[in-house]
Structures are given as C-alpha cells and as structure tokens.
C-alpha cells in the first residue's frame, strides 16, 4: 500500500512547483506588454525609412548599389539565428534552431560554406556543440535587445557582403587564425520567431542581403519573409521566395514606369550616397525589429508553456488527492475490520 506520508509530500511538492510556474506565467504576461510597446515605438522609424526607400527604388535607377546586387556565385552564406537566453519557453528555441540547422546542412550538402551569427545563449550552445562556432554572438540580451546589438550585427553583415571578391575562401577552413576575420558573404539569411499575437509565434526565414528592393513596399505586412511549417524543408522555402520576388519584380516594373512621370525626389548629395547610408540602416532596422519581435515572442511562448505547466500541475494534484483519499479510506476500513474482527473474537470466547 502506498505510504500516506509520501503522497502528502508529493502533493506539497507539486503545489510549490505550480506556484513557481504560475508566477513565471504572470511575469511573462507583464513582459509581453513591455515588449509589444517597444515594437510599437520602433514602428515609425521603419515606416518612414521604407517610405524613403520605396520612393528611391521606384524613382531613380538604384539597382547598381552593391547591397542590392545579387552575387553571381554563392560560396558562403551567413545565417543569423535569433534565440533566447533562457529556456522554459516550450518549442521556441528548438523550432528556430532546427530550421536553421536544416538550412545550414542542406546548403553545406550543396557545397556552400555557412557561417552563423547567434543571439541568445541557446543558439550559441546549440551551434557550439555542433562544432559550428558562431562568427559573432551576443548573449544576455534576448529579453531586452538594444539597437546597438542590431547595429553591430548589421555592420558585420554589410562588411561581409561588400568585401571584395579576392578574399580567399580557403582561409575559412583554416579555422584558427581565420576566426576574427570577416569573410566575404554572398547571402545573409535570418531565422527568428515572429510574434504573431500574444499566444502564437511563427517561425520566419528572411533574406537580409542582398536587400530585396522589390519588397520595400510590402515589408510592413511581413510579406518579405517566408513562414516555415514544421514539415516544410528549408530549401523549398528559398525557392518559394524566389518565385515571389519574380512576381514582385514584374509588378514593380509597372509601378516604376508610372513613378517616373510624377514629381521625383531630389537627392543630396546623390542617390548613390543616400543609398550608401540608407541601406545599411535599413538592414539594421530589420534586424532590430526581428530582435524585438523575437523578444516579444519569447515571452509569449514562455507564458504559454508556463500556463500548460500550471494546468498540468493542477491535474496532477487532483489525481494525487484522489489516490491519497482512497488510500486513507482503505487504511480506515482495514482498521475497522480489524477492530470488528477482534471484538467478534472476544465475543466468541
């Protein structure tokens, strides 16, 4: 027969665990609000920037800017993975990490070298364990990302993307000294969790560089990114993006011919110089948004996970209490039977 005292102890421990998960749920709920407010605050800047970029790309001929041009041969891809510092957030980190790893493995199988940039301890530990040391990493910031983080990642990406072609890639495999050097990257891809609403996160894959100017007008609606479903392979997502871009290019060609007729902007000192400043900022802004979005998503995921844990604890307590009661009842019944039996034996005598 199970020990009554042991069951009582078990109930007490589940109850205290439930208290912890309930508190974490409440903390996460409060943090979601803070995180969402930051996204709202950051929106005017990105909207204003998109407006400027949209007017430039539809008006003047800007396609020859290095950040807008695709590299002919893709030898090295920079993969940015945004994760959290702490766990206890359900599948939040594992989803994004799995998708990024699948993507890296698929590209490596095609003979393309991949480098990763991680934010959050989880991503760092994951790739380090797999012997893929991040070229740049940030930790202890996932819950409160600053623009400085986005700036540093952004300037790294721009430096890598615009690095001249003569950079010898054999350097990359010569691991030791090559670590602190920036290697030329031919594409920059970002993986992160988009906070669709308080309860749901959507895993997104976005191409950061080359900047896809045909999606400027659409970025605000999140159309520039690819949603990845659980069973959809990362490669399929890339092909989908290409198709979408071609459609957008066709549409943009119509718009730009119309825009030439209307009053165009004047650029000081010149279109190229404005783009030189604007495009790196655009990259940084997108990264900053992704960091904020992921931070909000992290809290959402944690709240959901902690709610599920609290509910499970409630169920467990109910079950344990039933067992406890039936065991106690059993013990009482046994005692009564023994007393009755004893009394009957005395009577017989």
């Amino acid at each position, binding site marked *: 027969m199970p020990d009554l005292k042991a069951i009582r102890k078990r109930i007490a421990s589940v109850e205290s665990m439930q208290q912890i998960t309930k508190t974490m749920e409440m903390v996460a709920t409060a943090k979601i609000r803070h995180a969402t407010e930051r996204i709202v605050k950051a929106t005017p800047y990105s909207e204003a920037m998109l407006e400027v970029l949209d007017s430039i790309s539809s008006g003047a001929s800007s396609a020859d800017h290095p950040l807008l041009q695709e590299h002919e041969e893709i030898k090295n891809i920079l993969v940015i993975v945004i994760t959290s510092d702490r766990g206890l957030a359900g599948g939040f980190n594992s989803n994004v990490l799995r998708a990024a790893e699948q993507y890296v493995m698929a590209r490596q199988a095609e003979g393309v070298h991949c480098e990763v940039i991680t934010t959050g301890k989880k991503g760092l530990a994951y790739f380090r364990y797999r012997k893929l040391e991040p070229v740049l990493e940030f930790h202890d910031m996932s819950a409160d990302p600053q623009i400085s983080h986005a700036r540093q990642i952004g300037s790294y990406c721009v430096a890598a993307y615009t690095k001249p072609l003569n950079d010898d890639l054999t350097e990359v495999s010569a691991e030791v000294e090559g670590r602190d050097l920036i290697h030329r990257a031919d594409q920059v891809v970002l993986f992160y969790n988009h906070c669709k609403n308080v309860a749901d996160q959507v895993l997104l894959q976005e191409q950061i560089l080359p900047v896809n100017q045909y999606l400027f007008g659409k970025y605000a609606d999140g159309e520039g990114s690819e949603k990845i479903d659980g069973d959809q392979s990362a490669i399929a997502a890339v092909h989908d993006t290409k198709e979408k871009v071609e459609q957008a290019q066709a549409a943009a060609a119509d718009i730009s011919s119309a825009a030439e007729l209307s009053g165009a*902007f004047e*650029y000081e000192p010149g279109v190229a110089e404005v783009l030189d400043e604007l495009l790196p900022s655009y990259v940084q802004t997108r990264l900053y948004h992704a960091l904020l979005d992921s931070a909000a998503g992290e809290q959402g995921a944690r709240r959901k996970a902690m709610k599920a844990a609290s509910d499970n604890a409630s169920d467990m307590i109910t079950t344990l209490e039933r067992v406890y009661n039936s065991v106690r009842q059993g013990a009482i019944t046994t005692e009564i039977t023994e007393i009755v039996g004893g009394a009957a034996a005395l009577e017989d005598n």
Partner: protein
Amino acid sequence: MASKFDCKIVTPEEMIYDSQVELVSAPGLEGDYGFMNSAAPYVSVLRMGTMTVHEDEHDQGRQFAIAGGYVEADGDKVVVLAAQALDTSTIDRDACNQELTDCKDKLAALAADDPKAAYYQRQSKWQEYLLSRLG
C-alpha cells in the same frame, strides 16, 4: 505668419518629436538646410550635428543633437530619421562621460579588426559630440 507643417524626428527606438512647426534647420553633409512649408521633395544625408525646430517663427527654437541620419521632405511634412537623437537640454554630462569611458574601455579590449569595434568608435564620437555641446 508662415504656414505650419508636420515635423517628425524618429530614431529606431522611438519617436522623439512630432509636432506642427514653421521652420526646421538640419545639418546636411554639405552645409545646413532650412525647410519651410511646401518644400520640394527632397532626401538628404545628415551629418552628426544639431538641428533646430521652430514651432513659431520668432521663437528660440528647440534644439536636438543628432548622430547622423537622413531627412525626407515632401511638401507638407519633414521626417528626420536619426540614428540617435537627444534634446540638447536633456544632455547629462555624467551619463555621457560614463558612456564614453565604457566605450573606450571596450575599444581597448577589442582587436582593431574586430567587427564590434566600429560600433564603439561611432558611439564614442557621439558621446564626445554631446559633451562638446555642453561646452
């Protein structure tokens, strides 16, 4: 009285200023600009410097230090996209000094070709500029 138009100063983190103004002056790469209502469509790169907004033609104007960015003017609105911006009356000398020391410490600890170094160089320039504003 000149007619008013909408002026916004935004940084990636938040909107710093949003109001109806009569005159805006901003530090361009090749000299300062002034914008009034019905400005021609114009996009320009800004240098690190101080911009002034006049809500009324004859007021002293409010000054904002900005760490570079762009200005977009289009008829009835002027939008300043600043990398960083601060109302000059709210500059805190101690905070700037603290930040500057932090940046320099971090720079000293990093190798010259470290990808993070460029950021701290820019940041320390910005703090130095803020301190120079205080005189």
